[in-house]
């Protein structure tokens, strides 16, 4: 039932899958979860230096490997099949935003630092961009003021790439995380494998990288959605597989619980959810790669995969029974990731509305 990717893409999937399998057994995830940064620095270094994944989607003329959204989707899906705690998504968001800057002289030094992994950046969008983020920022004389509720990997990023719309056209700024006037508040998150921090900006000096048009801002946002959607599809798949495996071995009333027809039918329904979620992710990635207007389908992918993931997480706990509700069993780690992903970058309801808005614009 796998959509046929080409050989190179299949290889890429294998490499990432093997890497995640090696790096993210439950014990490793739990060990990293308990650290301050919540990131597996060793794995992250290897993803950059050895696997080249940080540079994967960055155009070759910008120092990247020049792969497209389809390959990025593959990496995200495989990462999503594990809980490997690395700041890949924030890195993708930041480098995608930076790639929109045409002025090479401005872009180059930053991109080089990000792609090499020597600096970690994340992307900050505020609600004035029309995205479901709480907080607003204003740029005045290249100083930023305002606040943003939750920034992905903000607790650890060296650099914030900030899209500010007010009071002028959307502009991409770079802000050093150590700037004066910037107050960072690491947040206690439900999904401890994916951290967020809140920021308050008071006259924070910012480097103006360039203005963006609305289409560019939307493309950055859509790229984020599609990446997250593919990750969620992978997570849903992982939960389905784990749950099916469990029902095949767990015995109650003298038979495996996977032999009960009511369970079988629910797992069949879940498989349908997951398969449709996967194609939603693939299709959005392919459309993005083809340069099509992807906003409607990016939102579609976000809510279809989020619903499938949450559904899979709910069923996983239910079908594991009591053990599924315990701390020591991994199911809740996935449930937390699913819940976190459901609301990050906009709830499913928000994206259903956006899809209709895009379709009727």
């Amino acid at each position, binding site marked *: 039932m796998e959509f046929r990717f080409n050989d190179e893409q299949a290889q890429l999937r294998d490499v990432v899958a093997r890497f995640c399998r090696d790096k993210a057994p439950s014990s490793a995830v739990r060990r990293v979860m308990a650290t301050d940064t919540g990131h597996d620095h060793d794995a992250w270094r290897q993803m950059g230096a050895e696997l080249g994944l940080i540079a994967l989607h960055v155009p070759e003329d910008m120092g990247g490997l020049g792969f497209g959204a389809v390959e990025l989707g593959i990496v995200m899906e495989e990462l999503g099949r594990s809980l490997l705690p690395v700041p890949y998504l924030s890195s993708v968001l930041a480098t995608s935003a930076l790639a929109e800057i045409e002025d090479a002289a401005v872009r180059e030094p930053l991109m080089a630092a990000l792609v090499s992994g020597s600096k970690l950046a994340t992307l900050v969008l505020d609600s004035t961009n029309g995205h479901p983020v709480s907080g607003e920022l204003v740029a005045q004389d290249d100083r930023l003021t305002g606040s943003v509720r939750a920034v992905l990997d903000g607790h650890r990023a060296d650099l914030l790439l900030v899209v500010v719309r007010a009071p002028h056209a959307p502009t991409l700024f770079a802000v050093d995380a150590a700037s004066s006037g910037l107050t960072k508040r690491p947040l206690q998150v439900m999904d401890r494998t994916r951290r967020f921090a809140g920021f308050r900006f008071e006259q924070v000096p910012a480097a103006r990288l360039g203005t963006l048009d609305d289409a560019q801002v939307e493309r950055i946002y859509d790229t984020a959605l599609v990446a997250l959607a593919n990750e969620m599809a992978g997570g849903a798949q992982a939960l389905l597989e784990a749950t099916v495996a469990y029902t095949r071995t767990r015995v109650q009333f003298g038979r495996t619980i996977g032999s009960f027809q009511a369970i079988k039918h629910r797992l*069949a329904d879940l498989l349908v959810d997951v398969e449709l979620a996967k194609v939603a992710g693939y299709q959005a990635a392919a459309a993005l790669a083809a340069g099509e207007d992807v906003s409607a389908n990016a939102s579609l992918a976000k809510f279809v995969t989020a619903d499938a993931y949450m559904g899979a997480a709910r069923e996983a706990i239910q079908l594991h029974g009591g053990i599924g509700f315990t701390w020591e069993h991994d199911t809740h780690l996935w449930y937390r990731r699913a819940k976190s992903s459901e609301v990050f970058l906009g709830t499913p309801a928000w994206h259903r509305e956006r899809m*209709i808005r895009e379709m*009727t614009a």
Partner: protein
Amino acid sequence: MTAPAPAQDALAREVRQWLARNWDPNLSLAEWRERLADAGWGQPTWPTEYYGRGLNAEQALVVQAEFARIGAVGPATAGPRGLAAATLLEHGSDAQKKRYLRGITTGRDAWCQLFSEPGSGSDLAGATTRADWDGARWIVNGQKVWNTSAHHADYGILVARTDWNLPKHQGLSYFLIRMKQPGVEVRPLKQMNGHASFNEVFFTDAVVEADDLVGKPGQGWQVALTTLSHERAGFTSIRGAEKLRHGDQRIYREYAREIEIANEPYTWYPQRAGRIDMLLDRARESGAIEDPVARQEIAGAIALQRCLGWFGARGLAKGPAGSIAKLAASRVARAGNRAHTIVSGIDALFEGPDSPRDGIVGEILLSTPATSIAGGTDEVQKNIIAERILELPREPRFDDGPFKDVPRN
């Protein structure tokens, strides 16, 4: 597009030459198809001895492309005749192939499928229509149901029970039956949406000649599986009103009429599928486009349908995964029903001319429940997925003894 291989070039040239000599849109449809059958170009993959050319599927595409290029009409394909042909090609005797395949491909004979029974729906192999050997012929008694186009049919492919002492799958045989005979009565079966696309067929001492048994007695289920696999492959594609119109000559008029008759039972199929395509326009008409709650329902329905389309278009819906597409289609239909209801509001009270879009909306609301039943219920699809894809244990069997002892309706 890759360039055609040299061998394919030669083939294309050969077809082109034959068409140049033979294609004439002023022929009658029947005359033209007799030419096609003689030359074998209508059914390129069929064996040369049976009105075909013995080509492979890839070569067949080359042939069809040449036909399409000049607008030449193809062989008869509408209705269950294709299922009959595929089954005969795999399991029929030489005599049967000679006797029936020509009438199938020329369109001379219409066919119907006689599998489902009132007492055996999901459990097709539980058929209780009987065929008893009277020493010279098979005598058929019983009832079939959901037989599309049986009232037009000259022949039927029939599964009937010939041995009641064997387990259920082993006591069935597969027959070709003449529909125009005294012992066969066809009655239209009206559906809840008012259409009568199907029939019930009653057999009372109907006769099947000895040489119209396909395969051996007791092999009926294996033969039927061939028919079913071809049927399932066709189910998830939505039937559209096929339009091939290159001119006003006689053959195109006859061909258009043939398609019209063939599609007649299927006019409500788009409604059965939920008519997601109409939702946004309908919402603009009714004003529901301004309602955030209706917009949520519409978005959900459109998303489901797009995902189903992508799933199919990526070639994922083959084998047991066809059941995934079938279940997804049921979801699309249900979502369409819900969304059309909220979009139409009070107008969902009506049917026919008082229902929006000249009755289409009412027909949607009354047709979508068929999607999760026809062609194998959702429940059967879920069993297939659970057992064949997820590899969960099979249901315990209660029907593996001699069929006469198996509980049934």
